[in-house]
């Protein structure tokens, strides 16, 4: 499923995330699904933002940009979209139920 402008994303229901960071990377374990992820700074921030509250791609990009002190330019937008797509593929995030 391609993340469209109107989809609001959330961390998959039932997730319980445990975080560890070393240098510029995160290792995240989800006690709900049992999955483990290794994430770079942007992907980690995307997940942290969603962990706090569901967001659509545009809100997500702006929050990530502000927290990492980056410009919310098309490049970042693309990175965030791609991150959501990958997270969705592995069941880490899902669209909120309407």
């Amino acid at each position, binding site marked *: 499923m391609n993340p469209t402008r109107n989809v609001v994303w959330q961390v998959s*229901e*039932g997730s319980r995330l445990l975080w560890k960071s070393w240098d510029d990377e995160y290792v995240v374990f989800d*006690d*709900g*699904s*049992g999955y483990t992820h290794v994430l770079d700074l942007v992907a980690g921030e995307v997940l942290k933002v969603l962990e706090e509250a569901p967001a659509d791609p545009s809100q997500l990009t702006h929050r990530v940009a502000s927290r990492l002190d980056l410009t919310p330019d098309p490049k970042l937008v693309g990175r965030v979209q791609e991150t959501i797509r990958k997270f969705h593929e*592995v*069941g880490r995030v*899902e669209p909120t*139920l*309407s």
Partner: protein
Amino acid sequence: MLALTPVEWDLLLRQARRASAVGRLGALLDEPGALDGVPAKVREHLEAADALVQQQHRLMRWEVTRIRRALANTGVGIVLLKGAAYLLAALPPAKGRLFSDVDIMVPKTRLPEVEATLLREGWEFLDMDAYDDQFYRVWSHELPPMQHRDRHIVVDIHHNILPPTGRLHPEASLLLAMARPLPGSPLKVLAPPDMVLHSASHLFQSGDLHSGLRDLTDLDALMRHFAADTEFWNLLSSRAVELGLTRPLFYALRFAHRLLGTPIDRQALDRAMAWAPAAPLRVMMDFLVTEALTPQSTGQASQRNRLARWLLYVRHHWQRMPPLLLARHLLHKSVSRGRAAH
């Protein structure tokens, strides 16, 4: 039970392992102070088994959440059965128990919609040959087992608690009508008498008695738990009549009482005697079931035990389908098992 010698612990653990019940043993000892007398090595084995149990429980909860979400927009009522029900309703049989599949029940009329929705959301039918697929759909009127493409848990979707081709036909609408919701969830589980009757029918109709003792302990745990409600035994008996499941209830009460010492209401036991089969069959069933369920002390299934289990397996399939079809099915099974071994 706690004052065992190391050799006795050794034997107990091996028995438990044969019955896939080490987790259960650990759960039984999960009381304050109970582990004090247990040797360190034994505790390590219990801990190891518990890790497996916790993993399975986690995977099961995750799967149930995903199924619920996938079917949310259809409005179909989902009733959890067996292990998934015990786990999510926090019932005693769930403690320390290993489960494999998630079993759910939906109204028969909604089956096509459920199937289509799950397929769209990433579930797939398990790889099976055309014969088994046909067996499920045409003969059993059930959906073949499903599995999400990203995960390993198998999901079985039922529209009744027993296959429609068998001799016993409980009315599905009665079961669904009495189903109870889980706290704070749209998911439901069967009413207590129905849960017991389901377990009883499954154990005594099922062809696979390998885990027979484990299933009987489920029954024991359920009955002990529900007996806290004084109305339970009456409800159980009248429900058995209503659903046409009096014969399995007779077996369940008789064998739980005889083999596990389950405290059963005297009146319920007496009433159940009326549902016993004629004497020769009853005597044979006594022998077969006791032989098939009693664990073997050397850890090796004796000839008699294996024969008893095979006879019960045949009986199960006899009740499920006409003789000619049974022969075909068994032949096919033994051929494919032979192929798989090479």
